[in-house]
């Protein structure tokens, strides 16, 4: 192994030295304030060094390269779309940045991990997060777990101290990372042989790009990221990507596809559950063709919504009352399977599961037919053999149930408007929905992060998805309420960059919903949104409490100060704030915030002052709402 390259090695010491020089330069350029009077507070501003850095040309590495550069080169070649990080793992993140991959530096590694997860969920592309070896890495844990539960192909990177210092506790930040992510990831490796860095980079992308997605975690000891390679002959297993992984997909057994077509033919009310795998395999067009050919209802589930438009007459995502009528249920790409009773289907329904992983078919829910296949390939095969069938009664029932659901939502809204001394969640949900889908905006335009806990029981009912990647399902499966601002940042980055299905909506503002409890975990990322001019409107449902309420002597543990000013917090972080305490003030605040986001690329927190008693059905009907899964309310599976 060669020695470290002299000069800019990306060490912590180099980083601090460069930062101090930059800061000293900035101070020198500033006006000197005399001490005679209390000076006005200096303006919050983005330092010139940030746009200056962002405008620097890319510097793709070429041999001789360090280990970090070899890894970054693989990331570039594999199409890594973005990196979200905090300082630490310097050599690796600097090298990825030099390759021209969009990079974003935030305030906490945890939120940056969520940002990468959110970015992936609405694009279907791979992104990475990174942190320093000990605290930075462990700060990411909650959101690595959330990404694992969501089946997100997230690349988790972290530095690690020198191999030669293993078990010594020399210096700081000793941590054995790989055991920590066990159970949360698909694949993980502490790289210990510098000469195999290319091979393990390939391992990572092979895992990320095949089968059922989940996080991949690599940690880089100093001997590996700092190793120097004169040319490719010093790297073992140095091949181009077609030699270390395949783009081939599993295709379905034609007999089983014909059996499914026959089941569809004999069913009266068939329904497809279009889930995460439909999105990642980009099967939305063929899904629509199959559904239309045989009048099959489609209900969505999973981490992202919009694979099948809510506006389609066959959509059951906003027709929860129709689910029990389905006599044939076809799960397509449902990676997180519900148990019996978790999805609202009849005990008489037959179940078919289409999934790339044979080992998962039959888990939790019994099946009448299993098909091992890439989701898109299975639907393409099915399209060829499924008979054309019209089911007018079924389509009419779906329409009637959608109307019933909308009527119920409208009733909740009317009730919510009667509460004048705080903002009821139904008011937020209905007015937001009207603004996004029934006003001046194209209904497909705005990508939404549907987060929060109690508030989400309302907003999910009113959000609509009309195109792929339009709704990021925040607390999906793992139930973490904290990452919402991180998700919003990553989703906004995806929309600003126009990645994947967000391309047509490039530059549009993003809406995020969170609660006051969740905001605490990642609210500091308003500064990151401001720094990168991300147009996010973050709506904080502030009910002065955690979502779950305590009683008696324990009650204090569930409560916060009342009337906290998260809007002021946003202002102090370089973003805007709106404080809404009356129902009639919400819509004007939303319109202002969206317009400023669109025109000036400034984020806003709309702090909606609610009250915890809104969850008490007896006091404030309709209270805390239940939910039906699958469909627009789903987040368990």
């Amino acid at each position, binding site marked *: 192994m060669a020695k470290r390259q002299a000069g800019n090695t990306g060490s912590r010491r180099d980083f601090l030295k460069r930062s101090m020089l930059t800061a000293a330069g900035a101070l020198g350029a500033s006006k000197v304030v005399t001490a005679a009077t209390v000076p006005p507070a200096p303006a919050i501003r983005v330092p010139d060094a940030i746009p200056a850095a962002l405008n620097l040309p890319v510097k793709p590495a070429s041999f001789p390269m360090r280990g970090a550069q070899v890894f970054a080169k693989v990331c570039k070649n594999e199409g890594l779309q973005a990196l979200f990080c905090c300082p630490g793992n310097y050599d690796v993140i600097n090298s990825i940045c030099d390759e021209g991959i969009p990079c974003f530096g935030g305030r906490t590694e945890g939120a940056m991990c969520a940002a990468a997860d959110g970015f992936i969920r609405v694009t279907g592309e791979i992104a990475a997060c990174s942190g320093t070896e000990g605290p930075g890495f462990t700060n990411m844990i909650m959101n690595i777990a959330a990404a694992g539960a969501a089946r997100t192909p997230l690349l988790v990177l972290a530095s690690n101290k020198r191999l030669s210092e293993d078990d010594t506790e020399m210096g700081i930040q000793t941590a054995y990372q790989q055991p920590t992510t066990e159970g949360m990831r698909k694949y993980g490796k502490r790289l210990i042989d510098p000469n195999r860095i290319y091979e393990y980079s390939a391992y990572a992308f092979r895992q990320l790009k095949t089968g059922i997605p989940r996080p991949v975690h690599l940690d880089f000891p100093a001997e590996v990221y700092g190793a120097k390679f004169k040319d490719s002959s010093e790297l073992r297993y140095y091949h181009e990507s077609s030699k270390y992984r395949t783009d081939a997909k599993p295709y379905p057994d034609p007999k089983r596809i014909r059996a499914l077509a026959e089941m569809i033919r004999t069913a*009266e*009310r068939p329904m497809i559950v279009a889930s995460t795998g439909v999105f990642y395999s980009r099967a939305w067009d063929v899904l629509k063709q199959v559904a239309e050919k045989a009048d099959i209802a489609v209900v969505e589930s999973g981490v992202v919504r919009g694979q099948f438009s809510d506006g389609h007459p066959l959509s059951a995502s906003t027709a*929860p009352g129709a689910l*029990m*009528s389905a*006599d044939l249920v076809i799960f397509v790409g449902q990676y997180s399977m519900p*148990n*019996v*009773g*978790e*999805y*609202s289907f*009849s*005990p*008489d329904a037959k179940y078919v599961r289409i999934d790339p992983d044979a080992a998962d078919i039959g888990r939790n*829910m*019994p*099946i*009448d037919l299993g098909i091992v296949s890439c989701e898109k390939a299975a639907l393409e095969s099915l399209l060829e053999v499924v008979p054309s069938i019209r089911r007018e009664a079924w389509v009419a*029932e779906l329409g009637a149930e959608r109307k019933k659901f909308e009527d119920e939502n409208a009733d909740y809204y009317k009730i919510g408007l009667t509460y004048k001394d705080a903002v009821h969640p139904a008011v937020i949900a209905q007015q937001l929905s009207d603004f996004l889908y029934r006003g001046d905006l194209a209904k497909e335009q705005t990508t939404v992060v549907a987060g929060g*806990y109690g508030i989400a029981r309302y907003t999910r009912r009113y959000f609509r998805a009309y195109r792929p990647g339009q709704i990021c399902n925040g607390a999906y499966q793992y*139930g973490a309420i904290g990452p919402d601002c991180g998700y919003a940042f990553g989703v906004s980055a995806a929309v600003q960059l126009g990645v994947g299905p967000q391309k047509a909506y490039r530059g549009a503002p993003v809406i995020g919903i969170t609660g006051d409890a969740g905001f605490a975990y990642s609210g500091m990322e308003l500064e990151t949104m401001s720094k990168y001019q991300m147009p996010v409107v973050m709506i904080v449902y502030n009910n002065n409490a955690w*979502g*779950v309420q305590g009683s008696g002597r324990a009650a204090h543990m569930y409560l916060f100060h009342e009337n906290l000013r998260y809007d002021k917090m946003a202002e102090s972080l370089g973003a805007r704030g709106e404080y809404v305490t009356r129902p009639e003030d919400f819509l004007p605040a939303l319109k202002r915030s969206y317009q400023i986001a669109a025109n000036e690329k400034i984020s806003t927190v709309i702090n909606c002052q609610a009250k915890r008693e809104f969850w008490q059905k*007896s006091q404030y009907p309709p209270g*805390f*709402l*239940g*939910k*039906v899964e699958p469909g627009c309310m789903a987040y368990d599976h």
Partner: protein
Amino acid sequence: MGTRAQSRTIVSDQLETYARRGVFRSFSQTRTDGRQADFRFYWLWNLPFHLSFDGKRKTLLFKNLLPGVPARSELNTSLKSFIEGFCSKDQPEHRRLDPQRISIRYSNLRGNVSISFLVVADDYEYGVKKALNLINEIFVGFLNVQFPEYAVEHFHRRED
């Protein structure tokens, strides 16, 4: 149709079909005589269910199905109304319970709700199917949606 023993066999076979399909887990017939049979199985939310069949009275009984439902509570009133709704013509035909073929009896004894189904026209296949569908609707479509806090308290459903 047929004798009481035949009716018990039909009910048993019908329930076993759900077990074979994987809808029920740990299905067992715990008591049998010429007229009656008890069945136990794990079903919705992995909860144990107990169903009794009385061939003489032509009834399927889920005794003490729901604990902790005060007689004068909103839950009790709403549940009765929800169940009655399944005989309404507002329901799609395939979800409706035909009162000419099955009759529902709701009882609340000291807060324990029992639901029994009288199979009117000896069509036990229909009776079993409709009874199970209604119980499914009560748990998944009613408690889960309208009274989630009850499901949390009594059936250990996840709170957050």
